[in-house]
């Protein structure tokens, strides 16, 4: 059997193949990845290359895709062309598969971008007497055997005009292998997705350029469902007692998401119509309210959710203002009070692939804790409260410009403010720092009581004079009127300290119980990941000092920011991450803390603002 040499330019790779071998096969042997969306059927034209010599004559299949001028110039489809002699083949870049690998910040790993929604640019042959195929067939056949026709009428209604206006150069949009839209020209670069973390207190959206997975805009806002109550239980009760309130809660979160879409769009100039995919994580109650499903079962014993598996819905049916054909993926939940956002944290930290003992704690409203031990996952919710997200703290705010996010006290109080402007409030990391420092210098007792000026005589004068008493009790001025933004002092009140104690005791108590669950101690923990509401990078030394977390060695503690949001981005960009999420949701054991003996006692102990000895 005769053998020939095929040389590929511009890389100059050469292979020797038997006569009759397809160029596509020769390319594979040479290590070149040619695009092949239609699976080698000769329908999409994506594997085109120039092979003027050493190959057979153009086939009728190719003549449907390539023009006479192109054929004349030696253009062929690799999947249809056979080698019949030594050949010199030029491969244009546009025919090669571009694999986007990105580093998702917070996930510490490379990701192959393979979203659910794909866009394929098609250069279709115009209809002719020889090729009188119907418009829709023309498009579907170019896409390959497994492309499904649209399920809705709109894409079909738009098709005829679109094809003719754009000279049969269009971009097909496929979701789950189904054609959902056709756009004029080549719009493959203009594909965007949104990753959303719906928190009980804060909602964050990341607008991502889908072919590359790169984040082009981030927008966050308070969850306006708070008008129905600051915590999950209140919102469940509101939704349960009045169907009108369920609708209101649903409309509220949809409105927040739409607002974030509008802001991201405005900031980047990306049209919402180019957003075809959204991945959403949130706790179980948030998932229900987002989809307008009653969370009634979550309200009383035995606390049962209405769904747990991931849900995929069309954007238009939820009222989200992106492309109406956009696909919205709502990630799976683990249990009644541990949801998709925790799945996101596990994905981001790769806790499902731990050989040793690793813990992740989400220092947010629900205070979820995940323990991974030798491949087994356990998760619980501590219902910590929104103190660490700025709510319920008198001058609390989200971690954005104007928020004090770090505090040091020696002879004076030194606050770092996000954006280096005058402080307007205190965010979670600032709160933890402030309390740690106040306890360290002795302005606040370990029991949480703020000292009066009279009792605090040992403090440096400038610090002491910040202790002020008013009709509600004691407060400490982190920023005096002349230092703060609004000409009013920014104070941490005695009540704020109490709120923080309650929140951190819940988290600490939960972490201790979870360690008991797997029969471990803080010294056994290989890594402790501190995840938090968007923007919160809680200082581990302060967290340890106030007893927010058990005494794990400081060098084993890592602040990973908004891990739930990272998880959402991973699920947005990759179908295999979604499969992994499903497996995580299915296999993680949900631990119900309130049923545990001893939680109450440890919760009480854990209120103390100091690092606590671990109790077996």
């Amino acid at each position: 059997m005769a053998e020939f040499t095929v040389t590929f330019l511009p890389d100059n790779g050469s292979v020797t193949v038997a006569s009759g071998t397809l160029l596509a096969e020769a390319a594979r042997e040479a290590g070149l990845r040619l695009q092949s969306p239609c699976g080698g059927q000769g329908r999409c034209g994506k594997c085109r290359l120039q092979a003027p010599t050493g190959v057979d004559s153009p086939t009728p299949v190719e003549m449907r895709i390539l023009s006479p001028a192109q054929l004349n110039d030696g253009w062929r489809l690799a999947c249809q062309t056979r080698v019949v002699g030594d050949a010199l083949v030029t491969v244009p870049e546009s025919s090669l598969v571009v694999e986007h690998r990105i580093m998702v910040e917070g996930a510490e790993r490379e990701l192959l971008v393979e979203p659910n929604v794909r866009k394929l640019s098609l250069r279709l042959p115009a209809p002719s007497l020889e090729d009188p195929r119907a418009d829709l067939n023309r498009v579907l056949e170019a896409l390959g055997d497994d492309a499904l026709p649209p399920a809705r009428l709109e894409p079909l209604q738009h098709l005829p005009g679109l094809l003719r206006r754009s000279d049969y150069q269009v971009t097909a949009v496929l979701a789950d292998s189904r054609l959902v839209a056709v756009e004029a020209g080549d719009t493959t670069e203009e594909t965007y997705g949104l990753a959303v973390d719906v928190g009980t207190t804060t909602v964050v959206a990341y607008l991502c350029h889908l072919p590359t997975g790169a984040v082009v805009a981030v927008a966050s806002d308070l969850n306006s469902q708070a008008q129905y109550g600051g915590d999950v239980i209140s919102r469940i009760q509101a939704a349960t007692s009045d169907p009108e309130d369920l609708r209101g809660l649903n409309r509220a979160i949809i409105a927040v998401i739409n607002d974030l879409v509008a802001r991201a769009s405005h900031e980047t100039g990306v049209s919402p119509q180019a957003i075809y995919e959204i991945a959403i994580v949130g706790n179980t109650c948030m998932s229900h309210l987002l989809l307008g499903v009653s969370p009634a079962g979550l309200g009383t014993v035995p606390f049962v959710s209405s769904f747990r598996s991931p849900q995929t819905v069309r954007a238009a049916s939820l009222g989200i203002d992106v492309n109406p054909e956009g696909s919205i993926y709502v990630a799976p939940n683990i249990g009644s009070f541990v949801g998709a956002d925790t799945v996101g944290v596990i994905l981001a930290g790769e806790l499902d692939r731990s050989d040793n003992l690793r813990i992740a704690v989400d220092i947010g409203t629900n205070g979820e804790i995940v323990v991974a031990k030798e491949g087994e996952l356990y998760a619980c919710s501590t219902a910590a409260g929104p103190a660490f997200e700025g709510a319920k703290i008198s001058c609390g705010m989200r971690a954005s410009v104007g928020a004090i996010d770090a505090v040091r006290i020696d002879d004076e109080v030194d606050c770092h403010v996000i954006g280096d402007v005058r402080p307007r409030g205190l965010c979670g990391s600032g709160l933890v720092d402030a309390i740690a420092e106040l306890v360290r210098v002795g302005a606040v007792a370990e029991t949480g009581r703020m000292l009066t000026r009279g009792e605090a005589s040992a403090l440096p004068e400038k610090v002491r004079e910040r202790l002020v008493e008013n009709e509600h009790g004691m407060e400490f001025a982190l920023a005096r009127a002349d230092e703060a933004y609004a000409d009013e002092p920014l104070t941490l009140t005695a009540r704020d300290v109490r709120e923080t104690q309650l929140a951190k005791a819940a988290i600490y108590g939960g972490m201790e119980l979870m360690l008991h669950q797997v029969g471990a101690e803080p010294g056994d923990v290989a890594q402790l990941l501190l995840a938090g509401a968007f923007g919160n990078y809680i200082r581990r030394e302060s967290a340890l000092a106030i007893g927010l977390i058990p005494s794990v060695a400081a060098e084993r503690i890592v602040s990973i920011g908004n891990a739930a949001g990272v998880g959402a981005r991973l699920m947005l960009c990759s179908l295999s991450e979604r499969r992994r999420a499903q497996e995580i949701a299915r296999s993680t054991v949900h631990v119900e803390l309130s049923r545990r003996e001893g939680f109450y006692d440890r919760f009480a102990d854990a209120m103390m603002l100091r690092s606590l000895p671990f109790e077996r």
Partner: protein
Amino acid sequence: MAVLEELQQAIISGNRDKAKEFTRKALDEGLEARTIVVQGIAAAMEVVGEKFRANEFFVPELLIAQRAMKASLSMMSGAPVDYIGTVVIGTVKGDLHDIGKNLVAAMLEGAGFKVVDLKVDVSPAQFVAAANENSANLVAMSALLTTTMGSMRDTVAALSDAGLRDKVKVIVGGAPVTQSYADEIKADGYAPDAASAVEKAKQLLPA
């Protein structure tokens, strides 16, 4: 007595070890358990309640004082004590929240009540049975979910049906509970926090 004052201080400041130490010392000095309970423990918890109302103490201080109190009581278990009354307490059916209820139970115990804690998810029938068995003066109910509050009404009715309503007073509390709800279900009292719960409970005792 100096040792009782020291015991008070130990309980108020939540020092478990010192509470045990001074209880031991008081017993060794020949003081009776009932004296220690009234003048040491109950007096201390009274101060704790006042400081709570004055916003000086909060839940953490209450909790640590309560544990110091329990430590002290544990040294005297078995000794005869004059209780000022008997309370049956629990979180209503369908509800598992117990932290607030536990605080109230502790404060009541500190004030000298005998406390029968039925824990959580307690049905009207269980409240009635316990009130009967223990000849209780008071039934105290807690609920954190509006969806479970209705069980309080049912328990009041169940007490009536069992013919206990004139002997047993009912007090209620919990985040969604209000004075007007308590009036609506014909409870005898409502308290917004653990410290005022003790006051109310004392007021409702037979004269």
